[in-house]
């Protein structure tokens, strides 16, 4: 008996297959990164973290693209990956420390939101940023992104009742913040 290791594949052109693959993936990235960045920015209210998460999302999309079966639109699928990735990040952050948004954080976020989304309503963006993280996630997923209660409950691992109570609390806080 002998035990052999198979030869490493070598690309004839001198360009590795991985590099060619990455090149063709750029089109997917360019078509979808703006929506992913908007989501990660609103969910985290942290521009640097949002950039990092946007990259993480597309790494995950890249690694799991072969499992995409075309049963939903590619944009929907990518968006779901973005939501899951961001929620996981928020959960791990929450486990480490209860992050409190300072006035300086809020000012920095509002400046980034104004630059990154010139057409958006900054008063709304600021009010969203002041919400507690849990209520903010639910409000963004239901009222901004349009997910049904049931999907949000599954994504967050909570009941529909919890989603609704978080949503109603978030809306109440939003209305109070906007009327100040």
């Amino acid at each position, binding site marked *: *008996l002998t*035990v052999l290791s198979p030869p490493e594949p070598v690309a004839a052109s001198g360009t590795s297959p991985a590099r060619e693959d990455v090149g063709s993936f*750029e089109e997917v990235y360019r078509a979808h990164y703006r929506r992913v960045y908007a989501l990660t920015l609103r969910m985290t209210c942290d521009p640097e973290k949002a950039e990092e998460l946007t990259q993480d999302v597309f790494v*995950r999309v890249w690694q799991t693209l072969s499992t995409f079966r075309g049963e939903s639109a590619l944009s929907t699928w990518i968006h779901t990956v973005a939501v899951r990735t961001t929620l996981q990040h928020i959960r791990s952050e929450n486990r480490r420390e209860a992050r409190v948004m300072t006035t300086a954080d809020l000012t920095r976020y509002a400046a980034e939101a104004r630059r990154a*989304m010139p057409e958006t309503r900054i008063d709304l963006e600021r009010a969203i940023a002041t919400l507690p993280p849990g209520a903010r996630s639910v409000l963004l997923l239901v009222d901004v992104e349009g997910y049904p209660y049931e999907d949000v409950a599954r994504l967050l691992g909570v009941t529909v009742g919890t989603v609704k109570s978080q949503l109603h609390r978030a809306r109440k806080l939003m209305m109070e913040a906007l009327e100040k």
Partner: protein
Amino acid sequence: MRAHPSEARLHDHADQALAPHEAAELERHLAECAACAAQVERIRSLTTSLAALAPGAEPARDLWPALAARLEAEGRGEPARVIDFPAHRRAAPAAVWLQRAAAAAVLFVGGIGVGRATLARAADPSSPTIAPIVVSGPSGGATGPGLTPASNGGGTPRSAMQAARQVQRAGTDYVAAVGAFAELAPGAAEFDVQQGRDATLSIIAGAAQELLRVSPADSAAAELLRVVSAARAADAQGVANEVHF
């Protein structure tokens, strides 16, 4: 006028989430109650504005160059179908457990030292990748009775199912290798084929149980556990069987 509906009911009504008869009843209340009608209007105005927020945002810098470099460095790999890897690619405990199980099983095959068997390393010696093993017969081809080339799907497992399959392949290779060794080397009868199979099935069962602990709804893990448990039960009764998953 009837009692005011709850705040939650007003939200449900604004979201059109009430049954028709409930909505009609609430509408009758709103027609008489300016305060509740105004609250429903505030909720609707807010949700309409939120739905109209900018759908996209432009990062301050082009993220693609750094992302492309990262993709080239990390490679495509197999999807993490069963275990969902968290952000920053920190493997979940179950995935780590399975990768270790697969690594242990592959090393187990290498460790029996059949003939000139060696565990090949990947091209990059610093890489922790488990190199694929190809068991070939005397003619150089994988022709021995029951020998199963394990070159397909070798390497570091990236999903739980891939890891489990690697364990299974390693078990198959072990059984085949010990069988061949027993044929070629007189006095090798002390190698217990069944013992190797038991160890392999035990590893896979443990992997499936760990998967189910982390993801109770994982049907693939449930199926894996079912198949392996059936095989172990058949073994215990001395009934010939094969494991496929």
